[in-house]
């Protein structure tokens, strides 16, 4: 066997890996409305917590059940059910990325990624807010 042969074999292996990857069902970023048209399909939604609705989390009865409403920038709105704990700083999040599947009347969420102002130290607005608070607490 020559080096070229082996390289060809590796080429084939790469092709197989390529097919393996290609066979993976890559997800999409969707809006709430477009996700509603793709029921049962795993999607990513960039949204905001709807603070006008109540967040339902009662850890003493079930620490793996969180229910809340999300809205996105296009005005879409959905109920979300997340079978896990309420993420830290959930109420303070400015933006959330929801990963999961849209069901009939709710979004079955598998994973939540939060964008919190606390992480946005470099965000000027956050700093401004912080300074104003110090100012008012004088």
């Amino acid at each position: 066997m020559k080096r070229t042969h082996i390289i060809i074999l590796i080429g084939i292996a790469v092709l197989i890996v390529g097919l393996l990857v290609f066979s993976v069902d890559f997800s999409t970023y969707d809006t709430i409305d477009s996700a509603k048209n793709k029921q049962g399909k795993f999607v990513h939604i960039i949204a905001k917590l709807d603070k006008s609705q109540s967040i339902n989390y009662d850890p003493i009865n079930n620490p793996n059940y969180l229910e809340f409403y999300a809205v996105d920038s296009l005005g879409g709105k959905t109920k979300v059910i997340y079978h896990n704990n309420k993420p830290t700083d959930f109420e303070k999040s400015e933006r959330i990325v929801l990963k999961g599947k849209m069901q009939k009347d709710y979004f079955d969420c598998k994973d939540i990624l939060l964008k919190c102002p606390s992480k946005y130290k470099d965000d000027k607005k956050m700093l401004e807010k912080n300074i104003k608070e110090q100012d008012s607490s004088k």
Partner: protein
Amino acid sequence: MIKFEGEHLLPGQIGHFFVILALVSSFISLMAYYNASRAINQESKIKWEQYGRILFLIQGISILSIFSIIFYICSHHYYEYMYAYKHASKELEYKYLLACIWEGQEGSFLLWSIWHAVLGSIICFRKKDNEWKAPLMTIVNVAQFFLMLMILGIYFFGVRIGNSPFTLTRNEIPAPIFSQPNYLTFLKDGMGLNVLLRNYWMVIHPPILFLGFASTIIPFGFAYAGLQTKKYGDWIKPALPWALFSAAILGIGIMMGGKWAYESLSFGGYWAWDPVENASLVPWLIMVAGVHTMLIYKSTGHSLKASYWFSILSFIFVLYSTFLTRTGILGDTSVHAFTEAGKAINIMIGIFVLMFAIPIILLYFKHQKNIPVIIKEEETSSREFWMFIGALILFLSSLFIILITSIPVYSKTPLLNDLIIKIHGGPLALPEDPEFLYNKVMILVAIILGLITAFSQYLKYKSTPRSAFIKKIVYPTILSAIITAILAIVYPYTYYKHGAGFLGAIYTASFCMIYSFIANAMYIRIGLKDKFSHAGGSISHAGFAIMIVGMLISSSNKVVISDSKVNGINIPASIDPMSKKQDNPTENLTLIRQVATKMGEYDVTYLKDSAGNEKGRKFYALEFQSKKNKGNEKFILKPDVYLMKDNNMSSNPDTKSFLTKDIFTYISFAINGDNNTDTASFRETTIGEGEKGFYSNGYFLLNKVSKNPNNEKYHFKENDIALMADLTFVSNDSMHYKANPIVIADSFGILQIDDTVYAQNLFVKFVGVSEGRKIKVGIKESKTLIDFITVKSYIFPYINLVWFGLILMSIGIFISIIKKFRLSNTIAITILTIVSTGLIYMFLFAN
């Protein structure tokens, strides 16, 4: 113009001066070294090099001064400076003052350039490798120039170039208080270091990682030097020890990040294929590939072009990873929320990447035809052949990782994104189980690498006689097959989540890695006759193999012991056909204060909470008591929660480490505010169906006792042994409350699942069965609100193999470096002792 009171403006002005000095001197040094590298006569070359060296020294001193001034500003809490205001605070412990400097973007660029200055100084003041100095230092100076631009903060035509660490708070933030001359009296405290980062790893991980990043510029510089001097192959020999150094430090740095994530962040593991982790793994993989092709070139003259590519790409991917992590392009995909520092900076980082990548690649193609190539192909029975294949696999796997990691970049690339939307129906996002996407490819990589590293040591360069090879390889092969078989029988993997095929792949990979370990360990005996100074390669391969075995075992057999039957059984989750378990376990468990709850083989009781040293930190004492060993095994874990300003919270896990397993626990939810003590205990009542019992605020009825209930909350099957009491509590104000405590007998013994009547502050326990179809019901009444926490708890078996393997691998690489630098025995032993004690302490004992 307002005259502000109490400001300390001098340090900032000095700091700013040093930034400009560093920028200018790195540029002049760059020109001097560039002239030196092109000088024809020796005399002018030496003269230019002298200039270059002095200016590089000035530049290095300036950078150290900048760093010292930032430290001074932060440690004195001069909040008139934006950097101190953003990153320092008065409560910050001394050790975190350093950490708060590299929390910010400016500080981490500075850290990077400090290491460039240190490495550059070593190169230009060493007596060796004189012919390479000029081109090498040209490259280092280009990088330094760019890094200084990043922290310059001067306006050119209305665009701010770089963010200076010495800007003033009042100039950066438009707020009314800055119109008052005494505004500083209101800025009482800075924002401080993010509590997530308050960990000793934050003090040590960034410097090591950045040393790793910075060191990749040296092989890159050597590759450039090879092209520039037209001595196309001679650079490999002096570059090799640097490439090894880079591989060792970068490897350690990456795994320190893993250990940090494991110990103190609530990700639930040491590796999550997070973009930020991947971005640093990719240069390491390429550097390791480069080390191998360089070794091939040194011994046989093959693989020179590959060595060029790997040396160049490793550094290019360091720059690319900076681009990924620092421009905020990963925004929605990474838990490491690095933020955008503004468009100008993003464009600068992009230029930084391209300024290195494009010229060097053009230069390479210009010289390509002159780079010597050996036409005759390697024999398949030669060591270099298989080393090259291994290096190629490492490189391809790194490409795979970076292609997947770059998905967010595709969405930001105008034409590409349109194309993706057309084909895919929306912007591309990772699949439902992104980790599996990586794992299923990387397990194949592990299998191939395991096999190659196992047998290739037994091959000789050029070609190997067949019979001698087979004779030597046969014992390790048989031995590792036996060990894998024993492992499969005694301690089988229980990772059924992805089916039999993947499980088979895990076993195959385990065999290959065990094979690699045994073969390399035996090679030190047979092939090297115990000469440890030559055993660097074998030791690091053996270490790498153990590390991967540790990863396979600890991830495959990880157990979520807080996965409860109690909670959320009403979830319609699919049942895995092989394990008969829910494939999406619900991982949180609520622990009520003073009430023992079953978690795997442990009874866990939340005993009490206590305040920590830092403001807002609270520890929760959890007592674990094992039912095995007659209940003698007992220990307390103290995970904690940090409450910050703004009521932000952060949770730090606590881990009990045994030799063979870790028990990892963290608080996923805690009640905010004052807690109350609960001293009440259970009061037992024996009661039959239809009978009545009493509690302080009313009475209760036992409606019925049912076996193996199947209702909306519990789904038991016929062969389970479970009893549920159906109780109704009637309070004095005639409110009715249901309670369904349960008792289950399973392989671990008796398990009671208490129910709560939250409105009445009651805990109801099914204590046991009594005579005459009666049961014992325990009732606990709290006077106050119930105190509870919600935890997640995992067991990671044999995770120490991961750390041990990493340490062994690093020691192996250092042995090779020492051999390449031809250090004396005493120095060699001193270095090895320091490195190994340091690593063993950091990875196995610290915390």
